[in-house]
């Protein structure tokens, strides 16, 4: 074997294991799912025994008020969570971007919530939200207020709060890293020109951080659609369908209602939605990178 062919084959040898595993356990299942979504499929059947029903599952879902509601719950949840986390996380980063003793401790402890199992996060919050035993209502009552029906009337809000608790640190840490890698010269120049703190933030820091922030937001958005365990443990989707996000509905349709075909079609809808966001992420990154580069050049030229 001469070294020329050796080099040509090398990358394939390096890629092969990953390609094989992903093909077997990721791409093939996805294809299988698309195939299954056109069939009337019960969990006790193997797929060859199932009946082809065309687009029936998709059409039923499209007109199913329960699915629509859970779709809107998902969208509300995902966008609220991302917007709130971005505002709080970036705000904190701007506020705390200074040399304070204890910053590294904060950063370390701040990561804890997102490292802990979602199942555990769910059970901690379910306990804290408990109408009588829970920490929140006990505290409220000891201060003389009325208890709040957290997981009843305000279930979606409660779930959103728990997610904000868990994931704001993610944004905070990324925003902080972005802030600290900003070109010092630009900030210095602005300060010499007499820009106030607010002006620095609005005209210099935020625009320069923008590429990172947009990618972060989109990453969070895609992840927000994956949330399932926290909600499952806290509310099981209730009351009503008020916290039943699509991921949870898929799992219920598959296991509780035993309609794998419908669940597959539902998964496909979710996948298409996420595909859209992923593509948006690519487009935004390219666009913002170009723009930020231009902006940075401008700032430098002016300074």
């Amino acid at each position: 074997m001469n070294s020329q062919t050796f080099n040509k084959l090398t990358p394939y040898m390096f890629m092969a294991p990953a390609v094989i595993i992903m093909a077997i356990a990721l791409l093939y299942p996805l294809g299988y799912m698309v195939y299954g979504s056109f069939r009337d499929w019960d969990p006790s059947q193997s797929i060859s025994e199932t009946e082809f029903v065309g687009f029936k599952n998709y059409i039923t879902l499209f007109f199913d008020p329960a699915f629509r509601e859970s779709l809107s719950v998902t969208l509300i949840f995902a966008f609220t969570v991302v917007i709130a986390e971005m505002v709080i996380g970036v705000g904190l980063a701007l506020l705390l971007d200074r040399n304070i003793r204890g910053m590294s401790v904060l950063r370390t402890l701040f990561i804890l919530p997102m490292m802990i199992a979602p199942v555990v996060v769910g059970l901690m919050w379910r306990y804290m939200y408990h109408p009588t035993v829970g920490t929140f209502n006990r505290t409220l009552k000891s201060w003389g207020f009325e208890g709040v029906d957290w997981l009843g009337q305000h279930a979606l809000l409660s779930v959103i709060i728990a997610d904000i608790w868990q994931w704001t640190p993610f944004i905070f840490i990324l925003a902080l890293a972005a802030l600290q890698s900003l070109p010092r010269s630009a900030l210095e120049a602005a300060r010499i020109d007499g820009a106030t703190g607010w002006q620095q933030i609005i005209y210099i820091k935020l625009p320069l951080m923008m590429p990172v922030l947009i990618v972060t937001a989109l990453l969070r958005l895609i992840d927000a659609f994956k949330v399932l365990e926290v909600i499952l443990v806290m509310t099981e989707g209730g009351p009503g369908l008020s916290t039943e996000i699509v991921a949870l509905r898929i799992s219920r349709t598959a296991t509780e209602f035993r309609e794998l075909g419908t669940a597959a079609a539902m998964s496909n809808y979710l996948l298409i939605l996420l595909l859209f966001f992923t593509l948006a992420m690519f487009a935004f990154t390219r666009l913002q990178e170009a723009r930020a580069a231009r902006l940075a050049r401008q700032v430098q030229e002016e300074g």
Partner: protein
Amino acid sequence: MEHDRQNPAFYALLVALIFMAVGPIFLMFVNSFKLDVDIIGGTSGLLFLPTIQNYETALCDILWYEPDHIDFCSLKFGGAFINSLIIALISTFLTLVIGCMAAYALVRFRFMGRDTASLTTLMVRMVPPAVLLVPVFGLWNNEFCLDRDGLIGGWIRDTFGGRGDVCLAGTHSGIILVYVAMNLPFVIWILQSFIVQVPRSLEEAARVDGAGPFQVFFRVVLPLIKPGLAAAAIFTFRIAWNEYLLASALSDRNTKTVPILIVNNMSEFNVEWGVIMATGMLLAIPPIIFTLFASRQIITGMTAGAVKG
């Protein structure tokens, strides 16, 4: 490092933030040492008699003595913990090795199909576990099976017992396979940004000395991207250790992992808060340890993951 003097309000904010981040976890820790009556009855705060009874109940299957307060050991926490360890460790190891090789190929070589591979990797990163639930359930239970009368299937049944065809579902390997596949895109993605930073000249030098591509990779590249590997390892471990949905669809009574056990234990008939908190605490300990000892790597990993679009 020199610290600037700051307004005390910032310190107050820091303390408040730390309190908010750690408070719930601390609460769970405290409650795991309380009896149910104390938790429900509202002996709030820290004034209570701590007990390890909850932990004894949780760990009853691996304790060397029989605690007095339980009649029979219903929670098989020890077994589930071992399953979780096996699954998380093996899948993390496999993901890292396979993922790093692929990342290396994507960064260092130009080859046919490279763009397709790279794009696919990016795309499948967004696939939520819930989407995989249905197909994986179907495939692992019905299609990825060995006939029990076949050569290998028959051998497995003779050696390990069990009934019916030998399927991936219900085995450790079945769960590990999904986890590796699920984590690969992320690991490949994150490691690429570390491999790019390895100076090509080092590799060339090694190659001139007569090293083959695999030697170059394992001897030169791998040691240089250790921080990236550590970050990737922690993130992979975290997902494999914490995942519930797919594991619950694929595991049987012998391969249950801890998250499944916790969710199962929140059964509607009897919410035993104390024991649940104890199991939750036990599940949370490994990630907490990682965080405390490797927060720098985690932060590096997170930043690397997000900055590279």
